[in-house]
């Protein structure tokens, strides 16, 4: 149960200190460290990343959502294709999805040209891939559950009964 609680806190803010997590869960600090170590070594927690609002930065990254359709044969399954694509560092996320297309792939690069070249030269030629549709991200409003707007100001009175 404490594993679940710690995981939830890390998902909320991976930079909470061990001491703060201990205070919020009524665990001892060494217990929190042990739980986190277990989550990491079991491969439940795979990494920690910042949630970035690229619009706030000068050197914006170019991101695209790419729809992929594939045709499977006797020797090749979804897993084989995915494994091949996921190895490219430009691919930030890759998911098999239900619906009109098979894979949903997130690609990141420094320019539109770079991303386009990647899709046309590295992805499209994969023999099982029959179609790619590339959607460039224009503006992001919410990432990983965090709204990227200016947020609501706390306009409560400083004292209320």
């Amino acid at each position, binding site marked *: 149960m404490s594993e679940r609680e710690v995981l939830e806190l890390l998902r909320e803010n991976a930079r909470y200190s061990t001491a703060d997590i201990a*205070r*919020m869960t009524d665990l001892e600090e060494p217990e929190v460290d042990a739980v986190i170590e277990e989550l990491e070594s079991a491969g439940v927690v795979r990494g920690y990343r910042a949630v970035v609002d690229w619009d706030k930065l000068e050197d914006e990254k170019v991101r695209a959502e790419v729809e992929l359709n594939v045709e499977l044969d006797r020797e090749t399954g979804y897993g084989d294709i995915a494994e091949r694509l996921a190895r490219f560092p430009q691919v930030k996320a890759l998911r098999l999805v239900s619906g009109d297309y098979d894979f949903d792939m997130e690609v990141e690069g420094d320019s539109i040209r770079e991303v386009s070249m990647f899709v046309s030269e590295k992805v499209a030629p994969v023999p099982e891939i029959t179609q790619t549709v590339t959607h460039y991200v224009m503006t992001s409003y919410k990432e990983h559950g965090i709204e990227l707007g200016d947020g609501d100001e706390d306009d*409560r009175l400083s*004292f209320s009964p």
Partner: protein
Amino acid sequence: MTFDLADRVQTVPPSGIRRFFEIAEERDEVISLGVGEPDFSTPWAARDAAITSLEQGKTSYTANRGRKDLRVAIANYVTDRFNLGYDPDEEIIVTAGASEAVDLAFRAFVDPGETVAIAQPSYISYEPGVIFAGGEPLAVPTREEDEFRLTVSALERAGASEADMLVLCYPNNPTGAIMTEADLEPVAEFAREHDLTVLADEIYAELTYEGEHTSIATLPGMRERTIVFNGFSKAHAMTGLRLGYALGPADAIAAMNKIHQYTMLSAPTTAQYAALEALSSCGSDVREMVDQYDRRRRFVLSRFREIGMDVFEAKGAFYCFPEVPAGLTAEEFAEGVLREQGVAVVPGDVFGAGGEGHLRVSYATGLSDLREALTRIEAFVDERT
């Protein structure tokens, strides 16, 4: 020439909190733990329903007692959550905040000169409400050694056996105390024995962090003498929408409705649409907020103990009630920590008898602000010890 004010209004002193407002205004970068309302906004689905109702032109009065569909939803909700059974046609009234409902009850049930016992420390409106209604408030102080639960000995010490009515608010503002079924049983017996009407303000019922909330109205022989108050302000983060309700026997609710129909007419219509949506689809939002409060609660309690301030294990609402270190009054501590460190907390005396020597600290504030506020409080305490 001074205006001719009514005596019963002049009797009520101005709120003790006013002075602190002014100090807080003068200072920048105040982190306020003095707030008695959620830091969350109303769940979006409820706000969206309110907006839609406005777009559809739903801006007329509703039935005096509130929309029928809302009363039915309330009846189902209190049955599911708190095991309370009330008829939506005759035993439920929707009001402009639970505050209005409490005021209606004082005016509907208290005759001039009747005594109303109030478990304290508690929300600041009960005493003035009793006085405005012509009654005589009787403070029943609760104590830290009882974890601020109301006990029969506290009632006896205060002379509450002679009272006509008893007001209690659990989970409690300002202490964060809760009362379990076992804690409530002797109080219920006392009320039956001395024939007291009971007003149970259960506005913080959802914010119970250990065990399940028990309403005193569910105990044997209590339904017929109890009015239960609840609303959407705290659990559904809807304070500004002003929507609450009262549950009680048909004749009692009819009497409250008589005043309500001549004064308020009906509770805000837009808010009623928001509330209906809140009950039908915002359960998971409420659970998420309750989880957040619970984490902050544990964080704040841990920090006070690390700082070396005594604090009892508050298990409800979104307050804790630490003891002021020796050598300072609550008022001095609250003023000092506000002026020197820019942290706003409320001295416990404001909430009546039993609150002296304590501070109400609200954790309805984000964790990063709580962390900073506790660091500042620690600095303030360290300078004095």
